[in-house]
């Protein structure tokens, strides 16, 4: 059996646990070395998984218990892609934290790795209950990371965040109970095969369960009207933590894709695509409200938090246009928006620490030192985030606009996207000019040395958007295949499970 699929979960959890034990528990430098090597290993593993997923979808039965009864991990193209994004982002945020957050307590790196483990697990699992468990793992690590460092604002934001997510977990469990009671399985492939065979009187119950799941995933991905927790939380957390959080809303989007594209997708009989009419208006409204938030934000960090909300709306639009025929554009945009929002959070921190009491708020303050370097990075990130040529945001937005062309939905999609681009552009130009041009000469500059690791983290994230422009065609071909994996007929997957089962039997006989 190929054990590669379990490593993205196993490696961070083992390393995190080891770091809690005496030889490593008080030594920051050793902890840092371990964490960095784990994060690098995760990047290598995810690259290997992408290579293997291009050949075929791998399933991994934990402990040899065969699906649909055992827990199954599934690595298809989409999973491998998202694992790679998480690995890169986690690496960049991880090296950014060196000498900053990691000094505050010896628990930072273990928590960080547990968070990465939870995110990886949520992407890997092929079982809905297991998805719940990994959601809880990533959430409980994020609760602790959020209030890491302490402070009044952090505890307040933390309490709101924890409460909202606990209620979300309760709703998640109710949804799982309803679905299990009617379908008799929580294995996603199994459910996808069974959903077409439901009795008419059970369909309404399954629909209820499905919509409850949509509610939970909308909460995780900060879809309107469940987005209120996000701006405050993201404004309170420390920089490298919030940069890692940039991928957390994408976990919600991924789950929506898996459940409403995979289980309740085109092959679901009477229940096919039943959630689409709900997602449509919410996605458009999310973009509209997110752009107003971007426009009204008082600091670069909350501006970026609202950018996250806008990007979730945009992603969901690609999910619903023409029954998901253009989901490949969505995956491309997902890569882009994760990298760029991650970079923007880090840049906001770099600028904020150099402006004294004004921090990253849009007010007049002393001149920013290293203005050329920081200003240049801010400019590139802003161009990518707004969607101006030549960076990847432009390609993503043009492709989304193009996919909505010719369909009735164009009337809604085009104005929403174009207006949001205009508003973000104005907001970013205001931010940049306040930071770098409207400085008051009276106040002295905070001279802070540039740490090479921190700049490297931002540069790596920004260079991915440039690389995504150059290799746009290859990435789009890959994500086209990923989208097809998602909507593939469940019998193909079933056959794969059957073959893996017969392999396991054969191994036992030997």
């Amino acid at each position, binding site marked *: 059996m190929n054990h590669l699929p379990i490593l993205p979960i196993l490696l961070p959890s083992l390393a995190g646990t080891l770091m809690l034990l005496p030889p490593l528990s008080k030594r920051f430098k050793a902890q840092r070395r371990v964490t960095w090597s784990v994060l690098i290993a995760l990047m290598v593993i995810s690259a290997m998984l992408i290579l293997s997923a291009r050949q075929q979808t791998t399933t991994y039965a934990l402990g040899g218990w065969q699906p649909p009864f055992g827990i199954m991990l599934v690595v298809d193209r989409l999973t491998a892609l998202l694992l790679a994004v998480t690995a890169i982002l986690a690496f960049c945020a991880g090296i950014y934290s060196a000498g900053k957050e990691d000094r505050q307590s010896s628990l930072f790196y273990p928590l960080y790795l547990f968070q990465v483990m939870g995110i990886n697990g949520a992407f890997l699992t092929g079982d809905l*209950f297991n998805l719940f*468990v990994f959601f*809880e793992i990533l959430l*409980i690590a994020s*609760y602790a990371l959020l*209030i890491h460092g302490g402070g*009044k604002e952090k*505890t*307040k934001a*933390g*309490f*709101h965040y*924890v*409460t909202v997510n*606990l*209620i979300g*977990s*309760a709703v998640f*469990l*109710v949804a*799982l*109970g*309803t679905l*299990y*009671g009617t379908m008799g399985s929580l294995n996603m492939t199994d459910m996808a095969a069974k959903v077409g065979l439901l009795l008419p009187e059970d369909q309404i119950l399954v629909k209820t369960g499905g919509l409850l799941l949509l509610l939970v995933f909308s909460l995780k991905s900060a879809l309107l009207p469940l987005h209120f927790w996000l701006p405050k939380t993201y404004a309170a957390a420390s920089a490298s933590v919030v940069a890692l959080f940039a991928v957390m809303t994408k976990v919600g989007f991924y789950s929506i894709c898996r459940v409403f594209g995979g289980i309740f997708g085109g092959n679901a009989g009477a229940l096919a695509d039943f959630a689409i009419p709900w997602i449509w208006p919410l996605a458009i409204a999310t973009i509209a409200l997110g752009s107003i938030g971007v426009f009204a934000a008082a600091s670069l960090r909350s501006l970026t938090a609202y950018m996250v909300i806008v990007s979730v709306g945009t992603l969901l639009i690609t999910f619903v246009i023409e029954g998901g025929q253009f989901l490949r554009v969505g995956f491309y945009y997902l890569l882009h928006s994760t990298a760029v929002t991650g970079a923007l959070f880090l840049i906001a921190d770099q600028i904020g620490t150099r402006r004294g009491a004004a921090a990253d708020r849009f007010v007049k303050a002393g001149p920013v030192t290293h203005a050329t370097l920081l200003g240049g990075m801010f400019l590139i990130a802003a161009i990518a985030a707004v969607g101006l040529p030549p960076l990847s945001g432009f390609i993503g937005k043009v492709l989304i606009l193009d996919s909505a062309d010719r369909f009735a939905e164009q009337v809604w999609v085009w104005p929403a996207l174009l207006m949001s681009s205009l508003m973000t552009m104005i907001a970013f130009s205001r931010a940049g000019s306040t930071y770098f041009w409207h400085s008051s000469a009276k106040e002295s500059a905070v001279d802070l040395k540039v740490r090479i690791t921190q700049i490297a983290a931002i540069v790596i994230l920004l260079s991915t958007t440039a690389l995504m422009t150059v290799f746009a065609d290859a990435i789009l071909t890959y994500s086209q295949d990923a989208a097809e994996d998602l909507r593939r007929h469940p019998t193909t997957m079933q056959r794969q499970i059957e073959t893996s089962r017969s392999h396991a039997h054969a191994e036992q006989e030997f």
Partner: protein
Amino acid sequence: MELVFALCVGVMTSCGVFLCLRGTTFTVVIGITLLSYAVNLFLFASGRLHLNAAPILGVSQRIADPLPQALVLTAIVIGFGMTAFLVVLAIRTFTDWGSDHVDGKPTAIENVIQRENRRP
């Protein structure tokens, strides 16, 4: 039995939701606890309600579905850990802000209401 069970779940859920909507962290914690009890019961019922049925083959004549019981066990453990964390966080909020209010301090309107209530 089904009616009593459903009533239990319903009453606990509504009490939990009501308490979660209060303005103090203490009631919110109690509300979430009640909500998670209700959810655990609901999850348990998703394997259908049986009397005298063991989740093991060959012990009793009727067999209960073991999976929901495993799910409930997991959900209880997770819910318990989360509640413990929330309690600690609520205490921390109280010490940081000097108030049991969920937003750190009562809003202006709530202050007015309190003053009105105190008036004889």
